[in-house]
Each structure stands twice: as C-alpha cells, then as structure tokens.
C-alpha cells in the first residue's frame, strides 16, 4: 500500500511526477523560443545582405553619386540613373504628407480632447477599416475618382493634364497615411497626464489654449514621430501610387507632371528582369534604397516616442 506513495516522491524542484522529462522539455523549448526570436534579428540582416549582394554590380560599377544623381535610365545600355525616380518618390511623398499631416493632427486632437464617447466609438472602427483597405483598392478608387477630378481642375486652370500625375498620387497617399498619423498622434496626446490639463484649465485657459500651449508643446516630438512614421509608410507604398501617378521616368517639375516613384519602378520592371541581368541588380538597389530610408525613419521615430514616454512618465 504505502509503496505507491513512496514511488511518487517529490522532486527537488518539480513537485509532481516526470520531473526530468518536464525539465528537459522546458530546456528544449527555451532553446527553441530563443532561436525563433534570434531568427527575427537574422531576418533583418538577411534581407539587407541579400539586397546589398544583389545590387553590388550596379552599386560598384560607377561612383555612387553618379548612380543616384544621373537621370539616364537605359537598361539595355547598362545605364541606371536613379535621379528621376528618387525625385518622383520625394515629390509624391512630401506633397502627400503636406496634405495629410494638418488634417490628421486636427482629427487626432479632436478625437483625443473634444470628441464624446459616441464619436470615438464610430471613429475607431472607421480608422481600422481605412487601415485595412488593400492598396489596389485605393489605386482603383484614385483612378476612378481622383484622376478625372484632377484632369477637370487642370483644364479649368488652362493646363492640359491626363490626371495621372504627382497631385493624384499624393492625394491617394494622403488618405492612405491617415490611420498611421492619426493613431500615433492620438496615442501621444493620451500620454500627457491629466494634471497638466487641469493645471492649465484651472488658471482660466480655454480648452484650445490648453491644447495649444500645454499639450501640443508637450507632445511636439511625438507628432514629429507620427509624421516620420507616416512618411515612411508613404515612401514604400507601391500599387496605389503606381496606378495613378503616370510612370514617366522624368523628374517632375510641377504638381501636374507625371512621376515614377521607386516602388513603381520595381513593380513595373520585374518582367524584364530575366532578359537584362544588370537591371535586376538595379531594381534590387532601388529596393535597398527604400529599405535603408524606411529603417532609418522607423528607428528615429521609435527613439523619439520612447523618450516622450520616459519624460511624461506614461506607461511604455
């Protein structure tokens, strides 16, 4: 009778039976989990390394400055100048941010400070929906609605345009980055402690004065971070821009000129890659440029956001 009890003697560390097996399982699993987490770090380096290796022939063929600032793009002759594409990307992205940021900021302040519970309950799902809409759908909508509108406005101004231009691309992009900028702005506004607002309101400031002098000043770096995150999202956006921006490999000079951003270049030229080997290398360089810019911007934004949380003492 009592033998059975004796067999189930408690282990020093693990109270029930099978201690050794469970301990082993735990050790193996721990190693596996750490390995998986390590893979994430490896993946970042693998992507970077693969792109560098693939773009090496174009990267080292000529001086880097010449590759980045030449406007001759003739793959069949082995000449790859990225200037028109870099300028195209910058025009579209900067213009999109210029349109998107003021609207996003005002909306975020409204949602964080003024809106009642009911408005917020509607706004959250709407923003989630906007964030979830696939980029081709944005592209198609832009093509159906924005492009004709831009053409009409162009005609009114006496300028002929097909509507496939920087302005159309920027409008579509501006809408696409709303969810990113609004949600980050709203988040940082919430990080300001309630006491800061109360102190300002108590001395007789209006609500807007409180927002302007206390809140926006406190979260100014956070808003910068939101803008940077939005910018990096817009920078790499491919399909939606591709469908409304015209894709003419020339640096744009006005809002109604067509542009040819880097992501569109990659997406459009992949079919030719098999026939012109060096072009593959050039496209991978385009991908590398996108990745480097986006990583730099993201890391910058994270650093800024973390600082705010540390300073305002919010949960981070």
């Amino acid at each position, binding site marked *: 009778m009592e033998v059975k009890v004796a067999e189930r003697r408690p282990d020093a560390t693990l109270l029930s039976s099978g201690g050794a097996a469970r301990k082993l399982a735990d050790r193996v699993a721990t190693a596996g989990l750490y390995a998986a987490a390590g893979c994430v770090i490896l993946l970042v380096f693998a992507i970077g390394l693969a792109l560098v290796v693939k773009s090496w022939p174009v990267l080292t063929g000529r001086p880097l400055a010449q590759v980045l600032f030449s406007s001759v793009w003739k793959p069949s002759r082995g000449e790859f100048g990225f200037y028109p594409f870099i300028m195209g990307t910058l025009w579209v992205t900067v213009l999109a941010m210029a349109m998107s940021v003021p609207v996003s900021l005002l909306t975020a302040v409204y949602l964080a400070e003024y809106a009642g519970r009911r408005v917020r309950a509607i706004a959250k799902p709407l923003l989630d929906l906007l964030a979830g809409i696939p980029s*081709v759908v944005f592209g198609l909508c832009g093509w*159906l609605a924005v492009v004709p509108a831009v053409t009409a406005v162009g005609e009114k101004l006496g300028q002929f345009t097909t509507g496939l231009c920087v302005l159309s691309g920027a409008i579509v992009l501006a809408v696409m980055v709303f969810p990113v900028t609004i949600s980050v702005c709203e988040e940082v506004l919430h990080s300001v402690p309630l006491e800061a607002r109360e102190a300002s309101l108590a001395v007789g400031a209006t609500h807007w004065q409180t927002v302007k002098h206390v809140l926006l000043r406190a979260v100014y770096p956070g808003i910068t971070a939101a803008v940077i995150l939005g910018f990096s999202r817009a920078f*790499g956006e*491919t399909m939606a821009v591709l469908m409304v921006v015209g894709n003419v490999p020339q640096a744009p000079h006005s809002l109604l000129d067509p542009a040819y951003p880097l992501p569109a270049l990659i997406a459009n030229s992949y079919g030719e890659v098999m026939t012109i080997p060096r072009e593959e290398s050039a496209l991978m360089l385009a991908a590398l440029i996108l990745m480097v810019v986006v990583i730099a911007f993201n890391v910058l934004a994270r650093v800024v956001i973390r600082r705010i949380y540390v300073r305002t003492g919010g949960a981070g």
Partner: protein
Amino acid sequence: MSARRLEEAVVKLLMVAAGLIVAGSVIGVVGVMLVKGLPVFTPRMLVQASGGGSSLGQEGGILNAILGSLCLGFGGTLGAILLALPIVSALQRDYAGRTFFGRFTRLALDVLWGIPSIVYGAFGFIIMLYLGIRASLLGGIIALTLVELPIMARGMDEVARLVPVELKEASYALGSTRLEVTLKVTWRQCLPGFVTAGLLAFGRGIGDAASVLFTAGYSEYLPRSLVRPVASLPIAVYQQYLSPFPEVQQRAYASAAALLLIVLVVSILSRLSAARFSRYVVR
C-alpha cells in the same frame, strides 16, 4: 465674444472639418467601390475562372483569383502564426522580455513592420532564385509569411504583455515549468487576442499586391499545385485595370469590390471572435 473664445470656435470648426474629411474619404473609397463594382458583379463570376480568352475581352469569372487569394492568405497566415508564436513567447518577461536580446528583437520586429511590401517581394524573389523555384503559390506564401509576420507578432505581443503576472506566479507556485506556464496560461489567456491578430494579418495579407506580384505571378486557371503560378485578387484587379478592353476594366471593379468585401468580412469576424473567445480568459 472675446478673441480667445473666437479662436476656440474657429479651431473647433477646423477640427470637425478635418474629421469629416477623414470620415468622408473612408466612406468615399468604400462607396465608389460598391457603386462601380456591384453593377458589374454577377454570380457567374464567382463560379467561373477567367479562362484563356478573358484578357482579350471575352467573358470570364474571378473564381481563380478568389481561390488563389484564399490559398495565399491562408498559407501566409499559417506560416506567420507558426513563426510568431515562439517569437512572442520568447518576448515574455519570463524569457527574454527585459534583456538586451529581448529589446533588440522587438526593435527588429519594428523594423520588419516598417519595411514596404515591395521589398519583401524583392527579397522573396531572391530566395526563390536561390532555391530554384519560379513564380508560384509556394513563392507567394513565402513572401506573404514575411509580410504578415511583423503585423501578427506585434498584435500578439501586445496581448501577451497584458497577461496578469499573478496568474503566471500562481502557476509557478504550483511547480509548473516556464514551458507549461507559456502553453497553459499565456497562450490560453491570449487566445482571443491571438485570433484577432491572426485575422488582422490575414486581412493584410490577402490585400497585399506588391509582395505577390513577383512571387506568385498570375494564372487564368484555378490553383492546382504549390509550384505553379497562382492568381490573386489584388493582382487580378491590377491586370484588369491595365487592360485596354472596357469589359475587362469593368471586371477590375468587380474584383476590387470582392476584395473589399472579403477584407470587411474578415475585420467584422475579428471583432466578433474577440468577443466570443474572451470567455476563456481569466479576469
């Protein structure tokens, strides 16, 4: 009215206007798609593949694209779940959470989250060249796994951080190992959040065009094999939009409406599932 009251009123008006612009653009996008897409949407499209002549303006369906997208979406989501589960578990405080390694992993996830999908497409293409596979369902799944991984991992990590420490401690006090706590406390407690994160990533994956453009290719026939090119709704929308034939362009509206409907259904499902699965959560 004093100047500062006036300023308050003006700014408030601007804010409401900005909010209406944002709301209007959401409703506008959905509205345009439904208005343009639904009239050209026929039930026959849903049961018919495009077939050989469709790109030349003949009649054809979008079943190949719908099924292709679902295969790609499920494959990519499955891959991302299998990778994200151990990563998120390792990021718990019980493991690497607060160490330098843990923080570096989180930074790496943030970096991956920011990388544009066209870059994943290019990277997937390099992997495929290296492995010697051509544009195929498998290639598309690899690319989508990479695209979805950071979205999924971030969503899951946010939930896993909210598991009460006391709950874990109770389990440790009974003699559980870290593995047992992870599997039987954290994962179970996080189930609703994990499902939501999975559905969110699925929605992103199914709508992503830039990453599958190189890697999955396009096919006018139903998906049959892992190593053959496969159609997907976003690429179908793009191909049909490029077509010079008005009939085919009209089909782009129908494809886009179908894609939007799938994304909407997935996002509604994720809300419902969060509520439904939350009964397993200890509060």
